[in-house]
């Protein structure tokens, strides 16, 4: 049995700040995360044609890693973190991912030895636990996934991460129908059950290999909601529903830490400020410097408590200013330098609050994720931390309450957003307080409505 969080790591929201966490972690080549400074974390994707063979892929990662390290020392950055999110071939063939990690780490060691630059390497195997038609969270694909973790850990990856997909079969159905109980079930319950299983095993591998079980993100669900919601003028999902999904994702991501993750949490987990309030573990975040990968509506705000600052992903190719990974790593590290100057000069909280206020009222998502409100969501989660269902429901209710209590002259919402929020709150108020009742009712409902739902196979019910 894992121990669930029932209290917060921070006594006050105002104690939360970028670059500093309660429990920093240290990578092999000297980079500490959450130990008082922010570092850029560069993300990249190989060009599509590089995926045709192991040799081409390894060559692609050799080039881009060398490019990043060369630029980092050219511009004088004290440290840099690299994240390799696997293309599926690298996870399905564990030796491919292992070879890439080995080549990357070797280059990083060379730069560390020559220049003393502090570095860390994160590898994020893909969640390959799917068959063509169905999720297959448990079974042969799970075993291959664990072999992939073993291979990259063996080869030198410091931080082990993944973006798991437990609950996604229900989320994809529920999010397109404004089904709030469905979001609680998909993300808060099924997602947390899967997270608990997989992160216990990742931690075992990390401990065995002397690596760090870093963290997960609810990319497959809360980010799906955020991307469907899109920009202010998009008409695909109310942003109030997207932030409810995000709030529910925090206890799901938390389940990874309860099962052994230590941070840094994954960059695209926009729920990470809530999670950091509870765990005190360092987090990666992405925002204004990840516009190469996607648009969001809180690009500055999300820097507020980051320990690593990421660009999410960029395809490796040439730009006027060098290769894409060089351009974006440079931007990331200039951001980090600014944050670190604020810390060194005693202005960190001032800068944090400027970043927050530049986006806090842009839309409901940024408002709830602003560190003061995120802290309130964290408190609601920890209140019933032992109950996966109740804490997810609490997070959703806290999110609604925060939005309803907002100064309406500052956080201006459309009628559509307000109506969706009211409907969601009514749905939450109608939900039971009994986890067993909710779980059995939901099982019956979604087995009938979602053809691809296989609860017994995937969640050991």
């Amino acid at each position, binding site marked *: 049995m894992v121990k669930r969080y029932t209290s917060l790591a921070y006594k006050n929201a105002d104690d939360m700040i970028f670059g500093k966490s309660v429990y920093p972690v240290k990578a092999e080549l000297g980079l500490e995360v959450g130990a008082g400074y922010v570092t850029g974390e560069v993300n990249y994707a190989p060009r599509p*044609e590089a995926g045709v063979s192991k040799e081409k892929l390894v060559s692609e990662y050799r080039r881009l890693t060398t490019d990043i390290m060369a630029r980092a020392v050219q511009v004088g950055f004290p440290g840099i973190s690299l994240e390799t999110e696997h293309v599926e*071939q690298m996870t399905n063939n564990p030796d491919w991912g292992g070879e890439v990690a080995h080549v990357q780490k070797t280059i990083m060691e060379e730069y560390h030895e020559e220049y003393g630059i502090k570095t860390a390497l994160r590898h994020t195997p893909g969640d390959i636990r799917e068959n063509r038609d169905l999720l297959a969270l448990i079974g042969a694909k799970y075993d291959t996934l664990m072999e992939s973790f073993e291979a990259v850990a063996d080869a030198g990856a410091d931080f082990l991460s993944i973006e798991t997909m437990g609950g996604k079969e229900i989320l994809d159905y529920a999010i397109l129908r404004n089904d709030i109980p469905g979001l609680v079930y998909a993300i808060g319950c099924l997602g947390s059950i899967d997270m608990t299983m997989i992160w216990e095993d990742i931690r075992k591998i990390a401990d065995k290999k002397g690596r760090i079980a870093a963290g997960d993100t609810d990319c497959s669900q809360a980010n799906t909601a955020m991307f469907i919601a899109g920009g202010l003028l998009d008409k695909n999902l109310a942003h109030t529903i997207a932030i409810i999904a995000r709030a529910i994702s925090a206890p799901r991501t938390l389940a990874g830490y309860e099962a052994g993750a230590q941070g840094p949490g994954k960059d695209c987990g926009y729920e990470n400020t809530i999670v950091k309030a509870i765990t005190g573990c360092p987090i990666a975040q992405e925002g204004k410097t990840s516009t190469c990968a996607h648009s969001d509506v809180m690009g500055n705000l999300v820097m507020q408590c980051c320990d690593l600052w990421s660009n999410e992903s960029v395809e490796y190719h040439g730009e006027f200013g060098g290769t894409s990974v060089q351009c974006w790593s440079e931007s990331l590290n200039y951001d980090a330098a600014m944050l670190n100057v604020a810390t060194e000069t005693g202005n960190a909280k001032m800068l944090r609050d400027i970043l927050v206020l530049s986006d806090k009222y842009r839309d409901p998502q940024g408002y709830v994720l602003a560190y003061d409100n995120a802290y309130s969501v964290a408190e609601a989660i920890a209140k019933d931390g032992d109950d996966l269902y109740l804490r997810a429901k609490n997070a959703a209710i806290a999110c609604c309450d925060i939005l309803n209590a907002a100064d309406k002259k500052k956080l201006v919402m459309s009628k559509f957003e307000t109506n969706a929020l009211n409907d969601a709150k009514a749905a939450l108020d109608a939900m039971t307080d009994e986890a067993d009742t909710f779980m059995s009712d939901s099982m019956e409902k979604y087995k009938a409505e979602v053809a691809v739902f296989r609860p017994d196979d995937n969640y050991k019910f």
Partner: protein
Amino acid sequence: MDVDPSKILVRYNVAKEKAQTPEEMAAEMYPSTEPAKTICAAIFDGEEDDVIEGLEKAIEGGADAVKLIDDVLMVGMKIVTDLYDQGVIFLPNVMMSADAMLEGIEYCKEQGGAAPKPKGKVVCHVAEGDVHDIGKSIVAALLRAAGYEVVDLGRDVPVDEVIAAVKKESPMMLTGTALMTTTMYAFKEVNDRLLESGIKVPFQCGGGAVNQDFVTQYELGVYGEEAADAPKMADAILSGKGLAQLKEQFHKH
């Protein structure tokens, strides 16, 4: 520390929001006669049971079950999609309305023992190697809502299977979605294999990593930036537009 946000950002969506509620706008579009009015309202509300109840009453009153599909159900759904296109209602409303309409269509087909001819047939798939299918599901739902027959091949569909389905179904359009840059390359292969077979069907491609630059690299490709472009593209094909005209209309960048 706090700030007056009015100086630093603009909520354009709030400023442009219509004075009328979606319900009021829909009510103005409903047919004036019963039972069509009630059934259309039930479709707008996404209430499947009310749609069936309305259809039951209509059939009891002597209406032709199969004719109800085109004369009432599709009319109700068009109100929903028109309001979506105008930005008055959001995608979940369309999905719930489509669920209700499709249930209504199944009921009418059971009662009438026949089905009206669809506007056209579209084959939908997710690229080989890619299991991210929510975009494809939205495309399929919007096409069905617009009266098209959809042959949904699912996700991670091998190129061979796509080609076989196109040969078997002879669709007016093929759609492909992909989230990842590494999987979208399958679209080029689909394109080449279709051309080898002498098939020049418009191939609408979109999704996460897919962009117009990539899609323009192969002859049959037409870039769909939004899922909502799919029924518009099918409508354009029905109106007689060829590949060049489709690209002219839908390539925005």
